[in-house]
């Protein structure tokens, strides 16, 4: 199995730890370790977890017209983006469909990085190249030449502070979706964040894919196994856990974050919970810039709607083309895109509470709630009840604007030191 797929430098570590491995985007990746998905999921909500995300791809976009090209190819209006900040958006086709979602990092006025999903570096680099025409831009796909791991959970900064130089300085003024440092030692930014051991430069980004406080770390791949092991050691007393893609999926579903090519894909990138990723003007009537896919998005014909939902309990249906979404009148209105179980939450007195919620009632027990997204033909109201069906199996769910409460991703960093 391992031979058919690409591997990350941590593959040997995953296998040695008895991880349950599977193909993800062409890479042989861990779904979970012997600890199990539930404990991994809870570790991130209650302390910290680490994820191998080296399968993701980064594309460097450099040159005097870098901004022009990214303005054309990415859905966010990047004109106001400050150095050291990053933003989430998508790269679209002319018809408004999603090629991939992408976080754009701004190093300076001419140097940007685009971080995309596993196996997508080539497709995104090709798309940028085919649209650059006369623009003065260099595009460099770093696929398999850059290491990446995420540390997520409230103890992430405390654990990292044992391993990086000048942690007080690094963590000072580091809001959500900002970053410091650079993985390339020839960059002037690379002095900002260095590992104590070996003086290794890293790019440290206050972002992630769990909805919880934490960081994504970009590093030369030859140093990532050591960093991974050092973080596990430094986090031992906080019960840090290595987490697989299973926990990553259930955490992101509870945090209402989309999985590219599953929750966003070959349909128009609009009418979804991530409208902030589109460059709307103030009165929401149009866009502040021209970009590929714009005209298709402004034409509301044939646009479907994506809504988050939560189940009554942890029971799921299998998502996909065989699933059906049935409204209160018994009409089939769409399909299920994602259905995962967030094991850190439960319904309590008509509200969802999380293991990380403050002032939990004594008899609260996190039993898990299924959650995810539906793609439907019509606009739904929050609070509306639906039935999800797949084969003979049916579950009742409710349309909600948000799922797991009391998430930490956006809280001030100083709360976690």
């Amino acid at each position, binding site marked *: 199995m391992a031979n058919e797929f690409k591997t990350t430098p941590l593959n040997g570590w995953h296998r040695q730890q008895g991880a*349950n*491995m*599977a193909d993800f985007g062409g890479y042989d990746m861990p*779904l*979970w370790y012997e600890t*199990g*998905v*539930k404990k991994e999921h809870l570790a991130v909500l209650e302390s910290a977890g680490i994820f191998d995300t080296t399968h993701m791809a980064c594309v460097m976009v450099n040159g005097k017209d870098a901004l022009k090209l990214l303005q054309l190819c990415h859905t966010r209006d990047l004109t106001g983006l400050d150095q050291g900040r990053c933003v989430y958006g998508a790269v679209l086709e002319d018809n408004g469909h999603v090629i991939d979602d992408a976080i754009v990092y701004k190093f300076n006025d001419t140097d940007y990085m685009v971080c995309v999903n596993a196996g997508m570096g080539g497709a995104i680099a090709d798309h940028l190249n085919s649209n650059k025409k006369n623009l003065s831009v260099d595009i460099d796909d770093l696929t398999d030449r850059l290491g990446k791991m995420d540390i997520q959970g409230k103890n992430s900064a405390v654990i990292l502070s044992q391993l990086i130089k000048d942690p007080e300085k690094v963590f000072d003024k580091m809001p959500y979706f900002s970053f410091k440092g650079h993985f390339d030692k020839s960059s002037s930014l690379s002095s900002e964040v260095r590992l104590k051991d070996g003086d290794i430069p890293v790019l440290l980004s206050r972002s992630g894919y769990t909805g919880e406080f934490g960081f994504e770390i970009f590093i030369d791949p030859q140093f990532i196994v050591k960093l991974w092991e050092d973080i596990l050691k430094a986090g031992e007393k906080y019960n840090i856990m290595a987490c697989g893609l*299973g926990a990553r999926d*259930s955490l992101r579903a509870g945090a209402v974050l989309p999985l590219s090519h599953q929750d966003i894909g070959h349909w128009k990138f609009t009418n979804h919970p991530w409208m902030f990723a589109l460059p709307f003007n103030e009165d929401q009537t149009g866009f502040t810039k021209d970009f590929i896919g714009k005209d298709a998005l402004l034409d509301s014909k044939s646009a479907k709607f994506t809504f988050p939902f939560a189940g009554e309990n*942890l*029971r*799921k*249906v*299998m998502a996909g083309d065989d699933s059906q979404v049935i409204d209160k009148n018994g009409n089939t209105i769409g399909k299920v895109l994602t259905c*995962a*179980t967030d*094991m850190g939450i439960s319904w309590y007195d008509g509200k969802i509470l999380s293991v990380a919620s403050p002032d939990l009632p004594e008899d609260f027990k996190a039993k*898990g709630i299924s959650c995810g997204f539906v793609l439907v033909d019509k606009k739904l109201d929050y609070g509306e009840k639906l039935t999800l069906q797949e084969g*003979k*199996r049916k579950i009742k769910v409710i349309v909600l604007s948000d799922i797991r409460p009391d998430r930490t991703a956006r809280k001030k960093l100083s709360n976690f030191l």
Partner: protein
Amino acid sequence: MKEIDELNIPEDAKYTKDHEWAKIEGDTAVIGINDYAQDQLGEVVFVELPEIGDSFEKGDEFGTVESVKAVSEIYMPLSGEVIELNNALEDNPEFVNSDPYGDGWIIKVKPADVSEMDQLMDKTAYLAMLKG
């Protein structure tokens, strides 16, 4: 996932093509899912049980096993009436993973026809089926 030669497939049970196991203990048949099934499913978070007194034909769906990753129906290895449920699975569904033939048993039935056991696979035949 486990390799086939790493699976725990006891000699004293019989197996279905859908990876359930059945074992005769006195007048009753004990039923569960086997090591291959639990390994494929991953961590079990919920087992939906039938009711005591329900009768099923061999091959009927009698419950579901739900893991973090997937939902899987479970089918009767032989016809019979449900006489006991493993209620411990309500609080400890992970027994299905940790001890699929012991604490992780799912139901006990009164077989309608014990000779149906002969139609199930023994360890050798089951492993041969997995190897294809």
